[in-house]
């Protein structure tokens, strides 16, 4: 019974993460489902869907198709769409029913690729894993399939990896982030998960650095480090200190070609014992919020926890992966936290502890996605400061 959620809604599933990562790339995205999964993505997980021209389709799988294993109709539908459009690739995405009947997406991709000559990528989504698994798989597929081989690097250039609205929100985070990066003296070649088109993504191998802004972008960044020698930094520039040190950290990383897991190079141990906090978020964003609370507000003890996958190299002792809302409730009740930072929907699970709302679309879907939260650079400190006691403010 541990896994039953009483207060939290179902989180965004793997197929939504995969589609979100590919949303802007001029591809044909086909979820092999009866329609409900596609509707879930377009209506509840993808704020960019409304008014967009992106091609997201449901295969319209019916019971008899599943029972008799007829995937010819699926192949023919996709071939027709490809013939009638000028899209650059096809993505075949699973859902619970194909998982149960064992649809072989690799084989379907082979057939469609052979008949249409268009690149086809696949993802065996099962609808059980969460969005981050799908997004991570999509970013890795992009890295493996679409980057053009190029020995040239563009000086002071970066890619942003992992910027889907599911993690970064719906307040045009790409524009704010690019503006922040440009102000620091760097150009952005591509923004993966943001609004970059496939042509920009294909140039990603020319970047001198990858900025990984969510845990979902990590696998692709590691692949690109190995394949193209591009180092990466994980983090989102939240707060005053991050803004101050962003340029220095990026510059050092490019200079020595060594990846880093923090944007803020302050010594976090030199805190002012001003409080304890628990952050419930994507791991990379959570780490950046932690750095902000420690560096800008003197917090002494901040843990990051997440309902989504966590990478051990990004964790510090005390960080926790949460398997259920019970896990969060027990963590908060057994700890001693001054504040919690997380999606507003976790409020019933944290008792009387103060919550700093930090909406996460993967958790609360469209409920808060029109809230205009700005948190890059100094705006992040200003936002957190509104909720902190005066003694936290340094």
């Amino acid at each position: 019974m541990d896994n039953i959620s009483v207060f939290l809604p179902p989180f965004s599933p793997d197929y939504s993460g995969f589609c979100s990562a590919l949303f802007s790339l001029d591809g044909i995205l086909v979820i092999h489902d009866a329609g409900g999964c596609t509707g879930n993505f377009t209506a509840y997980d993808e704020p960019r869907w409304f008014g967009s021209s992106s091609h997201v389709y449901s295969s319209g799988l019916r019971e008899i198709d599943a029972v008799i294993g007829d995937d010819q109709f699926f192949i023919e539908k996709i071939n027709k769409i490809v013939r009638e459009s000028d899209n650059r690739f096809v993505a075949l995405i699973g859902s619970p029913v194909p998982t149960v009947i064992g649809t072989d997406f690799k084989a379907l991709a082979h057939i469609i690729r052979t008949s249409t000559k268009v690149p086809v990528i696949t993802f065996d989504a099962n609808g059980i894993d969460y969005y981050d698994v799908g997004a991570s798989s999509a970013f890795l597929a992009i890295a493996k399939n679409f980057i053009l081989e190029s020995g040239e690097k563009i000086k002071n250039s970066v890619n942003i990896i992992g910027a889907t609205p599911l993690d970064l929100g719906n307040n045009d985070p790409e524009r704010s982030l690019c503006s922040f990066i440009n102000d620091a003296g760097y150009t952005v070649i591509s923004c993966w998960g943001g609004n970059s088109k496939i042509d920009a993504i294909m140039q990603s191998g020319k970047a001198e650095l990858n900025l990984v802004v969510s845990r979902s972008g990590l696998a692709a960044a590691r692949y690109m480090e190995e394949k193209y020698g591009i180092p990466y930094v994980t983090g989102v520039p939240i707060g005053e200190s991050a803004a101050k040190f962003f340029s220095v950290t990026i510059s050092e990383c490019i200079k020595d070609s060594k990846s880093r897991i923090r944007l803020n190079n302050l010594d976090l141990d030199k805190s002012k014992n001003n409080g304890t906090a628990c952050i419930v978020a994507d791991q990379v964003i959570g780490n950046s919020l932690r750095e902000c609370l420690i560096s800008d507000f003197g917090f002494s003890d901040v843990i990051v926890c997440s309902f989504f996958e966590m990478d051990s190299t990004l964790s510090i002792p005390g960080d926790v992966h949460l398997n259920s809302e019970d896990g969060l409730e027990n963590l908060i009740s057994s700890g001693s936290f001054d504040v919690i930072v997380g999606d507003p929907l976790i409020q019933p699970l944290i008792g009387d502890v103060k919550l700093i709302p930090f909406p996460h679309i993967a958790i609360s879907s469209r409920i808060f996605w029109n809230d205009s939260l700005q948190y890059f650079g100094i705006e992040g400190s200003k936002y957190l400061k509104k909720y902190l006691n005066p003694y936290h403010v340094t």
Partner: protein
Amino acid sequence: MKKIAIYGKGGIGKSTVTSSLSAALSVLGYRVMQIGCDPKADSTINLTNGQRVTPVMNYLREFHSCSSLDEISLVGYNGIVCVEAGGPIPGLGCAGRGIITTFNTLESLQAYEIFKPDFVLYDVLGDVVCGGFAMPLREGYADEVIIVTSGEKMSLYAANNIKKALDNFENRNYAKLKGLIMNCRNIENEEEIVTQFAKEIDSPIIGNIPRSSSIQYWEERNMTPIQGDVNCIISCSFLEIASQIAGTGKEN
């Protein structure tokens, strides 16, 4: 690494043939892994001298996930790594899906990278009845398929169905038919019947296992003939087929 799926009508002797080929390949000096893909989970029992490996589905039913290959594999005769998919609760669930889950589990535990077998033999239940039982044929799994058949009508019927399935999968980049192994039942004109069938489906016969009581004799002692008497006629037949599979013997 070469991966081979063994198919054939239920009761035709697939597990006997597969285990004996595994044993024979190991005698020839190859590292072998055998994966039983039958809910009965008895494919490898002779290679382990009767010791039962925990089937993957049984393990997952109890523990929900598996983090170690040690929990779901046993090293049997001559270092052969033995795995059994197992199946759902009888009468419930989906056996085909169980095979998919087993393969996914082995892949996530990097079984092939860790054991580094020269040969992987999949012993698959009967016919290619659904997507799960076609899993061993998929790209990335078996490279080749061997069909075990006798000269009996129903056995040839099943073999023909399997061949049809392989033909249907031609555009999917699936495993290719390597040939037939004739497991004789001593019916009249058996060799001619199977030879004619092989000609009709355009397949070679890569081996002929004569009817012999020594197979039952050694199986009663939880062994394959190779383990019991490597020099007996049956063992020599399996060693000859194994040599062909390994590319060191003559085509029949």
